[in-house]
């Protein structure tokens, strides 16, 4: 079994994670990508609050494939999206929201990696394209926020079990697997 992370996490726990280590997550994660990042930053800049407190939390770069049934929403496929698309917003997003873990694919730029280390946030790499494997770890859709952004861009608040395997790709000590 991989090391389990159970959010919310404090700085100490995050700093113990080392590049190359394999972990999985059990607990709450929240999806966010392009439009959600932009809206979150805009709200926090103007002193407003997010609809959910994600301090110490895990943000998952993902735009899931979903289906609405009579029983409610279902995520059919939900692998990671390219994190670097969000690079221009990454540091400010992490600083303002206080999240401790980003999960995505492809990594972040060298500059952003440095910022993440300064802010005490780690980047975990999930295998791209493993949508069905990822969806299988979702035990419950707890909330669907900012639905007006569309199902792909909305915030999906998920309860996951053994979400992963995830590779610590950028750690809080400045380690970066993409730079080897």
């Amino acid at each position, binding site marked *: 079994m991989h090391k389990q992370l159970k959010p919310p996490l404090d700085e100490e726990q995050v700093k113990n994670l080392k590049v190359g280590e394999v972990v999985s997550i059990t607990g709450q994660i929240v999806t966010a990508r392009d439009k959600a990042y932009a809206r979150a930053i805009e709200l926090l800049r103007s002193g407003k609050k997010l609809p959910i407190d994600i301090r110490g939390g895990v943000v998952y770069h993902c735009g899931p494939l979903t289906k609405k049934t009579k029983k409610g929403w279902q995520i059919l*496929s939900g692998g990671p999206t390219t994190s670097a698309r969000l690079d221009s917003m990454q540091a400010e997003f992490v600083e303002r929201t206080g999240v401790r873990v980003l999960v995505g694919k492809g990594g972040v730029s060298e500059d952003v990696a440095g910022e993440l280390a300064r802010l005490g946030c780690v980047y975990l790499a999930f295998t791209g394209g493993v949508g*069905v494997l990822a969806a299988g770890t979702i035990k419950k859709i707890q909330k669907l926020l900012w639905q007006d952004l569309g199902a792909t861009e909305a915030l999906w608040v998920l309860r996951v079990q053994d979400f992963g395997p995830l590779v610590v790709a950028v750690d809080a000590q400045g380690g970066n697997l993409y730079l080897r």
Partner: protein
Amino acid sequence: MLSEAEFCDAVVEMLRRAETTLPKDVVEVLKKCKRREREQVAILQFECMLKNLELAKKLGAPICQDTGIPIFFMELGADLKLDFDPLATLKKAVKKATISIPLRANIVDPLSRVNTGTNVGEGQPVVHLELVRGKKLQIDLLLKGAGAENWSRLYMLKPFDGEAIERAVLLTIGEAGGQPCLPTIVGVGVGGSAEMACLLAKKALLRPLGKPNKNRPLAGLELRLTRAANGLGIGPMGLGGKTTVLGVHVEKAACHTASLPVAINFQCWAARRASAKLVGNRMRVEVP
């Protein structure tokens, strides 16, 4: 005569199969590459990919949440009589498949970014129509996610610069780094004109893995590029390892004496493709 309903159903079925299963040649190469890796992180990436493929097949669910945009290559016989507009029916089929499979709604207006919600729109789906002799009707389908497509490049190189093609391809693979879902299939279009090189690069992705170009110099170029790319060490998902590409496919066309267009198009490891062809008055669908 082929009915519109038969044609439409076949296209929906082709999309469903392409979204939920990978061609055998791709699965075989993924397995082979996994065996070659020595580092735990690289092996883990392949394990996740292969496990995901099993789950997708078992559950009939799309392999990746980015169900991509469909690119259709249609060969249409000049003597074939149809009592419907096949282009309009392709559009209809994509709309239907979006609901029935379902597919993620990926098509937006390029400026307003408003999503059409149906996976069709102005100029979408993309259809490359080729008129051929006789009564043939064949459709080859590629599903293209944005992660790979976003690294497409077109270079207009100097014709007599020794290894310009190799440098352009390797530079692009290096720049893309771990951002497309590696290991990728790299399609390279050499010659033609600017837009033809792009089309050749994309068409190159239709060719099954393990089948080198029949032209010897091109086959040699493919082999050299594959080895050099895998020597970069970028590895599965950019996390380091021996496999950066599953293969490099090069296609060429004659070009202007003063030009050397070179286009590059990536396909992610989830290299989804399928085909359908007219047999009698029915469409036969297959994932090769």
